């Protein structure tokens, strides 16, 4: 370890393996606010706490145990990985443990049929219809650009007619105008994260409307 002016830059032996604990401490410091925000969001969305005060209190507890776990895992930390995702991944495990604990507590007091209904968080989605998603992608990602004069996408137009104006707007920006992330956000005057959320929910609405239309046999989008 170098100690003062005049000391030569040492041979490779002098530069021993990464002081991982120091790296992790710096990583935690650099990411503490975004980690705190992420934990609060996940606690709120999983219904683990109600009311802002309770969310904040529980988040701070999870944050503390996350930081402790991260420091304990210093020896195995890979500094080439994105620290924020790694730390939030640790927090997710803590949240999962808490959910399991709550589930066990509920099992002691709530009948089984009620547990099944309440097991998932808000806006629960029971299984992903991958085939529907793939089919939707085949329409959305191969659409004609809006600035072309020839209208060759009756299928896309008909699909977009299934959703409301707000959803249509963002779906058009993403799949007709081919805007991504930041550009889409700039067009809407919102942050990129909000644009992604709006687009993801618009896709989900589209998927649900398509499935509903498909079940009633009212639509044929293959023409």
């Amino acid at each position, binding site marked *: 370890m170098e*100690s003062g002016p005049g000391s030569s830059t040492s041979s490779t032996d002098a530069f021993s393996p990464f002081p991982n604990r120091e790296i992790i401490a710096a990583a935690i410091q650099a990411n503490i606010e975004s980690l705190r925000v992420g934990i609060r969001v996940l606690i709120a969305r999983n219904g683990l706490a109600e009311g802002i005060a309770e969310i904040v209190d529980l988040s701070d507890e999870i944050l503390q145990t996350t930081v402790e776990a991260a420091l304990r895992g210093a020896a195995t930390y890979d500094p080439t990985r994105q620290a924020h*995702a790694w730390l939030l991944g640790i927090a997710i495990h803590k949240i999962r443990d808490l959910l399991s604990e709550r589930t066990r507590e509920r099992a002691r007091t709530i009948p089984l049929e009620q547990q099944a209904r309440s097991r998932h968080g808000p806006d629960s989605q029971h299984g992903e219809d991958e085939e529907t998603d793939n089919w939707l992608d085949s329409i959305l990602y191969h659409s004609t650009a809006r600035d072309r004069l020839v209208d060759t996408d009756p299928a896309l137009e008909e699909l977009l007619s299934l959703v409301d104006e707000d959803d249509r707007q963002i779906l058009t920006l993403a799949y007709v105008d081919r805007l991504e992330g930041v550009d889409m956000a700039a067009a809407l005057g919102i942050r990129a994260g909000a644009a992604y959320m709006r687009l993801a929910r618009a896709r989900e609405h589209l998927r649900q409307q398509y499935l509903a239309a498909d079940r009633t046999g009212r639509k044929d989008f293959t023409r």
Partner: protein
Amino acid sequence: MNRQSISHNREHVIYRYIRAVDAGDIDEIARILHMAETDIELNRAILDINQSYAEELGLAEISQVAETVRTLARQHLTSAFQQTNEDLSLTVSEVAARMVAERSIPTSDQEIGRRLMTVQWSLPELLSLAEIRRLAEKLRISASERFWKIFRETALQMTMGRGQAQMAAARRKRCTRYTGNSEEEDHAE
């Protein structure tokens, strides 16, 4: 896999993340976070998405309010935040560790960043670019100009985080020492 395919795949993962958060699907969230550990763009997107969720849920204001409280406390209760110069002084290793953690080191200087993490020297009180260059000479470390600029910016940010008192003193010194337009002209007259 071409860039368009990568972008398309990443977009899908982003949507999976949002659906998982909306659905409270912890296992899916965990899977995607694991993917984000090696995908800087995905990591950034998740950061921004979480911030948007916080705003949607009314949780973002808490952090802002807390910061306002901290700022006001620092202004009106300065004795609670005053520390000795020794407590506030940063070391080369601390700054380098932050740069490694934030992945802000230019690719060509990665090894230098890691080496500096073992150097316990205190930084100069005045964090001008000229002082940083003098430090580099003493260390006998040859890094890019960009590296030292980022090093300086990181050190300044960390210093601000440690105490406004030190920053105010540093600003006063810079005002009396700068005599021209260039940052090079900070020699004593």
